[in-house]
């Protein structure tokens, strides 16, 4: 609730005493007000949020509004991409189907200054493999996710790479999740963490997906989605 005056008409010297009710209202209001000098923490109650109306609003002179760190999860659009000619093809739903051994690359739209934590891709191996993919050593080389940073000279720097680690054929040939980094809230191997602070001023970021290969290669794998997890600690301008 917004504050109201403790005495609407105001006090007059030597005429109006300050009643206890008025004094208490003043002190309660004061204790609830936002301190614009020293800051502080405020937890608006069930009366509702702090609402700004009118035409003036708020202005942040420098910096950005900070956020309590939170994971922002976004599906990445499958924009026009690089792929070895003939190796991948988009279908009607803009999923990418693998035809022959090769890579497909997607630009990642990531918020400047935040920390990229985790990437997952939903992938389904083609049917018809004769073996469990990993257990039979050499039947196929597993699909691979690779995260790149690309600088002003077009030089790609490898950030992290990881193979699909499904080991059972039936799981591999169903939709499953390929991962890069450590999923928030889960334990993991530190060396597999991404923890990349995004510099969208100087770099762009690309995720490439290398298809399976090897003697037991089967055409028809499907890449259905890419999702990235970013630890956001502030709003950014764009």
């Amino acid at each position, binding site marked *: 609730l917004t504050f109201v005056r403790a005495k609407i008409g105001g006090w007059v010297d030597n005429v109006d005493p300050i009643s206890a009710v008025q004094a208490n209202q003043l002190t309660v209001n004061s204790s609830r007000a936002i301190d614009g000098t020293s800051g502080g923490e405020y937890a608006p109650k069930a009366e509702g949020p702090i609402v*700004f109306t009118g035409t003036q609003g708020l202005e942040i002179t420098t910096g950005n509004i900070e956020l309590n760190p939170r994971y922002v999860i976004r599906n990445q659009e499958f924009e026009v991409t690089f792929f070895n000619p003939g190796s991948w093809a988009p279908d009607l739903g803009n999923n990418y189907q693998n035809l022959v051994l090769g890579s497909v690359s997607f630009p990642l739209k990531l918020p400047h200054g935040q920390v990229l934590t985790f990437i997952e891709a939903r992938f389904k191996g083609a049917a018809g493999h004769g073996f469990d993919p990993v257990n039979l050593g050499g039947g196929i080389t597993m699909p691979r996710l690779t995260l790149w940073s690309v600088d002003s000279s077009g030089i790609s720097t490898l950030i992290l790479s990881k193979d699909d680690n499904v080991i059972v054929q039936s799981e591999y040939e169903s939709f499953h999740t390929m991962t890069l980094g450590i999923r928030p809230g889960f334990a993991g191997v530190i060396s597999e963490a991404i923890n990349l602070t995004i510099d969208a001023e100087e770099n762009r970021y690309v995720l490439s997906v290398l298809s399976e290969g090897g003697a037991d290669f089967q055409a028809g794998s499907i890449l259905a989605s890419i999702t990235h997890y970013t630890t956001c600690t502030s709003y950014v301008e764009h």
Partner: protein
Amino acid sequence: MAFSRVNPTGYTNDNSTITAAQANQLDINQSRAIDGTAGGTYTPTGQIIISGTEGIRYQCTGAGANIRLGSRVITRQSTMSGITEGTGTWAMDIGMTWRNATESATGLFLPLDLPDGAVLNSVTARYIGAGGHVTNPLTDPGGLDLAMPLLQVLSVDSGGVATVVGSQLDTAVDPIDYEVMHEITASALAHTVLREVNRYLVRFIGERGAEYTTGALLTQVLYQATVTKYIEH
């Protein structure tokens, strides 16, 4: 820090005195409090933290419809996703860098994701000319051996009509500069971005002419814009 009550147990009529310390504290507190009616400028020495589940709802209109920012210039990279105007003129490699394959007066189209309401100041292409040029591109006496690469910034309206917001020819003057990464910048654009009615893109045309050499690279496209507010999306 958040204010606390100057008299936690409260006053009672005919039984309480407001001390000078309490009155002074009230006065100091109100002088520091954020004025929700008339506004004002505040420079907190500590963070103002809003916790709990209610937060802030922003329903201002007009000039204050979005949280305003002190004017600032941001730089952002394009994703380099795009499409060629002509067939076979440019090809993308695995790092999503574009490589010029054939000589053509047609371009490479790269959409720009610009913040609505911002003022677009400049767009820069980072470019590496192919190796092997003999004469200085711009100082060749004939002046026709090489038509230099051209960067155009386009605004396209709902009818598909493209308007050139700005453009810049490559100004590298000798092969030493031209065949390493250098920038081609369309500057002083001063264009207010209107995403509700327009879309924006870069059209990049590679070198042409008698001394055309295949293999130039377009490595990055970035923009600078002055922003004064957060936008929803």
